[in-house]
């Protein structure tokens, strides 16, 4: 196999493998290809998709954030606790702002632990995951948080449609486009790629490595917060144990999309494709009444496949350069 062929296979091979079952679903299952189901699929993909956008930025930076699921739960709980204070439209805005601020603080904490205290991203974010999850359970006493009035209005808005397109889906697309522009067209995005590619070189070039890392982790947590708000809007209530295993799906989507876990490589477009593929496969398994436990296993298998492709491709590239 020529180098060019192996490069294409490394980049798109995992997509082709995952497109095969989706193509079969399209042909064999008429329910799958119904507009209503595809509409639902897009809406489902939006929650994890928005979380995966933030995760992609962190992975390109050369890190990983395992706390996104817990942060999504925190976001919903803070927002709905604020809704409970009452105050109509003002409470709605206040709830969203408070939720995203709390998430940004958690993200900045992740960044500080990694940069200032030099803790590896895996351990730092795992620790923060436990702290946040514990905090949410303490505050809610492990019970569902719901509020009348603003909660319903908020839920209705996010679950509604504009020109037959789901608002949640439009928000997902909007954030994906914004993130892609930031990564590809701004100096901040360039710095994320540079730090992920060679942190020492970036530092010697005078890049504000510490600030970029903290800000990127804060953005990732805010994205997780937005995902958490979408999740809670589906039931007009906040579950303290929401978002479990979301980090796995977000990382899988990013890696399928071509992000290298070593950093310096990845794209938002790839991640969006990755999340759509994962959601479509999950949706297909649902249509055939496959247990949700199996679905988690399938996601893990896809992650292993994607990382395998990435590692194999990098080894091929290195041997060619050598």
């Amino acid at each position, binding site marked *: 196999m020529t180098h060019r062929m192996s490069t294409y296979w490394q980049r798109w091979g995992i997509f082709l493998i995952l497109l095969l079952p989706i193509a079969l679903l399209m042909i064999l299952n008429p329910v799958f290809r119904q507009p209503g189901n595809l509409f639902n699929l897009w809406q489902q993909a939006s929650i994890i998709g928005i979380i995966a956008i933030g995760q992609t930025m962190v992975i390109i930076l050369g890190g990983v954030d395992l706390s996104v699921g817990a942060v999504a739960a925190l976001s919903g709980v803070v927002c709905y606790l604020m809704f409970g204070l009452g105050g109509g439209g003002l409470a709605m805005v206040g709830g969203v702002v408070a939720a995203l601020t709390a998430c940004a603080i958690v993200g900045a904490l992740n960044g500080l632990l990694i940069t200032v205290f030099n803790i590896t991203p895996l351990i730092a974010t795992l620790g923060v995951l436990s702290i946040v999850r514990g905090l949410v359970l303490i505050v809610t006493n492990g019970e569902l948080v719901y509020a009348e009035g603003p909660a319903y209005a908020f839920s209705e808005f996010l679950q509604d449609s504009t020109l037959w397109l789901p608002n949640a889906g439009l928000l997902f697309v909007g954030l994906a486009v914004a993130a892609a522009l930031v990564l590809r067209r701004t100096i901040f995005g360039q710095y994320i790629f540079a730090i992920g590619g060679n942190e020492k*070189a970036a530092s010697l*070039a*005078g890049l504000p490595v510490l600030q970029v890392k903290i800000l990127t982790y804060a953005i990732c947590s805010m994205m997780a917060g937005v995902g958490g708000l979408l999740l809670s809007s589906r039931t007009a209530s906040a579950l303290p144990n929401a978002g479990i295993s979301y980090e796995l799906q977000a990382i899988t989507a990013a890696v399928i999309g071509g992000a290298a876990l070593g950093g310096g490589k990845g794209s938002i477009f790839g991640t969006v494709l990755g999340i759509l593929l994962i959601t479509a496969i999950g949706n297909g398994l649902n249509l055939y009444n496959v247990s949700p436990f199996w679905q988690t296993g399938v996601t893990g298998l896809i992650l292993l496949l994607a990382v395998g492709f990435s590692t194999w491709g990098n080894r091929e590239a290195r041997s060619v350069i050598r």
Partner: protein
Amino acid sequence: MTNTNQQQSDGRERVLSLRGISKNFGAVSALTDIDLDVHTGEVVALVGDNGAGKSTLVKILAGVHQPSSGSITFRGNPVTLDDPSAALRLGIATVFQDLALCENLDVVANIFLGKELSPFRLDEVSMEVKAWTLLNELSARIPSVREPVASLSGGQRQTVAIARSLLLEPKLILLDEPTAALGVAQTAEVLDLIERVRDRGLGVIMISHNMEDVRAVADRIVVLRLGRNNGVFDPDASNQELVSAITGASNNSVSRRASRRQAQNVQAQAPQGQAPEARR
């Protein structure tokens, strides 16, 4: 051995002057009373054995380390180099041995890394034009400035690193082992580049272990030994002189080889009819 260290070199401006530079790491003395002058349009090669203090001296000039004592004069003004950005602001650029390039980024991104033309949005067009202009001025052989650095050869990477160091129009460039681990063709490419940098009127300090490369481009060779000055030589100084200064030993393989060659020359010049004993 010459003593050009103290004097003006052909009336050219003295860009850098070090006097009595010492550096201690705890109880260990890495540099002791180093004196060094560099003029505009001059390549000064810094040679010495491992542990001679070459890299420490370059790191002091790059602002990575601060000297324990001594003075640094840059373009006639006494200066302190507190950090790498202070050195860059003054006009001292460094190309480190590992090049400090981001292999995942393209040539343009690497050249402008940390020195982007606009404060927020990437001005891709202007940066690409400026990158091409700079590389063309250096007659660099880069296939495309949109090529990721990972796909470039060692010589091309060195070219990108040197081009990046020229971006802020420095007055002095420090090159740490610029030809290490390069093939013959790539080495020639980099040495050509160093000559072109000198022709632009910049002062160049080049660390190297390769005497052939040093002789090819250096105007002066400064030898460090055990953290001290151990002589300043012209590039046409004999290998024996240089190796003696570097190692501190007058009896070594180079000097013995030179003696043998000298003996062979004497032998060849002896009259043919003479007895072998006399020739020996």
